[in-house]
């Protein structure tokens, strides 16, 4: 029951698990701390943060324990990060500072390097899904995917431009049609008075032209009648 001298706090947020130790840790507490930590690191988690801010170690044996815990966590393809801003802990970890990563807080760990964290998340997902990709294949897949995306974007871009051009043409033709209708109306109105006086006969309304559907046919009809005459 020596574990009763220490406080343990676990914040389990799925991929991120923070274990906080509080209290004074001597040789007597070592077996209990080992038992509790080994128990808590089992199970899911990609990043394990061991918060030692309020822990006071009075024996070097804990370094061995942390190395052991680190090994176990590495085997689970997860990462162990130690959290403390105290100088006492920096000095305590100095012997293994190249192995045990100690940060002031979780924010400073996040700022320490995105690539490292992405790699860790990748490792975790490869563990969860069983898919393992070599860096070369991953880069090739990435380039292919990027190529696909660029091609898709270009196709969309070109088609968009074509659509815009066609829309502009439709608008100009529509304007042309309106202008022609206005011109015809103007010509009709100018001929109106002469038609009333009987000086001009509207050939377009005569029965002979009833079957004429377009101007080409009409011109052909005129040409035929001229030849016959």
């Amino acid at each position, binding site marked *: *029951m020596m574990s*009763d001298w220490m*406080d*343990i*706090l*676990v*914040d*389990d*947020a*799925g991929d991120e*698990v923070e274990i906080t130790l*509080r209290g004074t840790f001597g040789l007597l507490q070592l077996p209990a701390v080992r038992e509790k930590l080994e*128990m*808590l690191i*089992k*199970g*899911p*988690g990609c990043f394990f943060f061991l918060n030692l801010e309020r822990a006071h170690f009075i024996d070097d044996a804990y370094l061995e324990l942390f190395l052991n815990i680190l090994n176990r966590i590495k085997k689970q393809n997860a990462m162990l990060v130690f959290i403390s801003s105290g100088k006492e802990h920096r000095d305590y970890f100095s012997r293994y500072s190249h192995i045990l990563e100690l940060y002031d807080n979780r924010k400073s760990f996040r700022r320490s390097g995105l690539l490292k964290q992405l790699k860790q998340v990748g490792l975790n997902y490869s563990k969860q899904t069983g898919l393992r990709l070599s860096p070369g294949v991953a880069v090739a897949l990435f380039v292919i995917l990027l190529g696909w995306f660029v091609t898709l974007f270009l196709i969309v871009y070109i088609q968009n431009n074509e659509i815009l051009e066609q829309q502009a043409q439709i608008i100009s033709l529509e304007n042309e049609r309106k202008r022609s209708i206005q011109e015809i109306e103007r010509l009709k109105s100018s001929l109106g008075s002469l038609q009333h006086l009987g000086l001009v006969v509207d050939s377009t309304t005569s029965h002979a032209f009833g079957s004429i559907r377009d101007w080409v046919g009409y011109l052909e009809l005129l040409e035929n009648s001229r030849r016959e005459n």
Partner: protein
Amino acid sequence: MYKIKLSILLFVKDVFSPLNVIPVEEIKSFSKELKLFLDRTSIRLSLYIPGSVLEAMVKYTPQEVAWMKARVQEGRLELIGGGFYDSMPPFFPSRLQSLQLKKHRQYITKIFQVEPSGYFNSSMVWEIGMTELLALQSFKYTLVNDDNLQVALGRSTPVFGWFTTEDKGTMLRLISVSTGLSKAFIEKVPFFEEEIQKLPKNDKCVVVSLEVPLDESTSVSSFFTSLEEKLALLDHQTWTVSHVIEQQMTEGKVNLVSALGSNLGLPIGAHSCRELLIRRPEINFLHKSFLAVHRYALEKLSEEDLEKIEEMLLPLMAPFFYRDLYGNQGIKNPGVRWKAYKDLITVLLAVESLESFDGLRIEVSDFLLDGQKQVWVNNSDLSLLIDHGRGAYLRSLNYKPSGVNLINAMRDDGDISVGFLDHFLPNKISSVSGFQSAVEDRSGALTFPCDYEVKRESESVHLLFHSEQIFSSPETKHIFHVDKHFSLHSKHASFDLDYRLTNSTYLDFKGYFGTELELGMRGFDAKTQLMKINGKKISLVDDVPILYPNAEVLELQDRLLAWYTRFEFKRPTRVLLSPIMGMNQFASPQAVQGLRIFFFWDVELSALESDSLGMKIKLSKRRVLL
């Protein structure tokens, strides 16, 4: 004729309301009557008003407050400082106490443009440790009851005037308040006159503290009428309390370590307000829950967010949550307990929201500050405290969306309310009263310490508690290996509770195994509450206990407090339902303080044989949501 020098301190107490209703009429009446009283008489007064009441006065009676401000500047009225919510300092961390004092001081300065030099709390609690806190907040004096000073000075004669006390290099003046004369002012005239005759004929100022009752607006006016009548009987000269220090020399130094105060519900033999934490487990548990939420905020939040949370915690330091009294005065009222946990859960949710934590939190620490560890488990909907040092039973079960602590009953035997406290009972019991008595006696309760184990899985956590428990009957003694297993989902308001019992002795066992819950339910009301077993409605008629033989599902609902819980048993169980009756202020066991539920099964275990039992517990706000 002898002319008595009097310093009168008038104070009001914050009024408890479950729904935060401000007693506007009473506060208006207080402001107006105070103005009329000071207009009619020429006396000088000192006044302590908690921040919450003062805010209401400024809002509803601004003219009277402006008038008071003018009297303060004339020197006829003195405003005394204290906690914004009139808290008792020895209970709370210095950081929160400083905030209480600072907030009250700033508000008084803003409204009246004066800085209070005196400190007062309506409970009249004093401890030597407060010296530094008050001195650092620029307070010059505080008031203590004269009977406490008599004990500290070893005197039997009345003590008047002021003394100094020092602690950690800081000094504070203690002004003696005449307890006898303070009481006499609210008694009838003959008693008052008798008390006046007892006063020594000297030129020392007698300080009295009088509470203006804010219960009804008529009682406010009758208080001032009575005060005026009493004063008319005296040839008096009145001064503000701070004037005592200015006009009189010190009476010397005193080593007053603690003063019990008054109106806390503690017996006369008690020495300190801290005894509330020992004598009333409900106060102790609320206090520890309060501290746990504050510790959580201190550990996880930035200074800016922490200030927001501390601001939210201040109303929870109000004295009515920490008095061993009935009615709206103290924790014996189920409504006060409900309100306390509702507000505390709101703060807990605010801490979780500011921390942006959405997961499962397990803390193994000395939550109760009793030298042992407990396991505090939190997910987004539930919060449970498991006391594994005493058999792994629940000390609290908070359902966060409704803001209720379900394990919130009160037992008049001074014991705590529990959740899933396990019992072995002999098979000789055959009557309902026999079961009820066996459970209440707790003779077969399994309270030996357990080892804990935490197993994390994705989306859930398993808390396993292993123990060796002894059950003794006059004939035999059995040792059982009990594995108690709580499985919680990280996001849902449900958990499973499973047992594995192994008879470790070479003797057959035939009896009952059960688990007890003491829910803090209101007195049963068929309109707003629902109780169903196997889909059939049941009700507690005349608070008579019920034993139901083959329950598969038990449903409980409180529509008023918006919670619903459902127990599903893995095999049919017997259910004993009985109300927990407690005393009310009329000293008869009439007040329903909760509902005791005892689930139990027949257990027959031969030597080294095992058996498994269990249930699933689901909670929601409404029945249809589950």
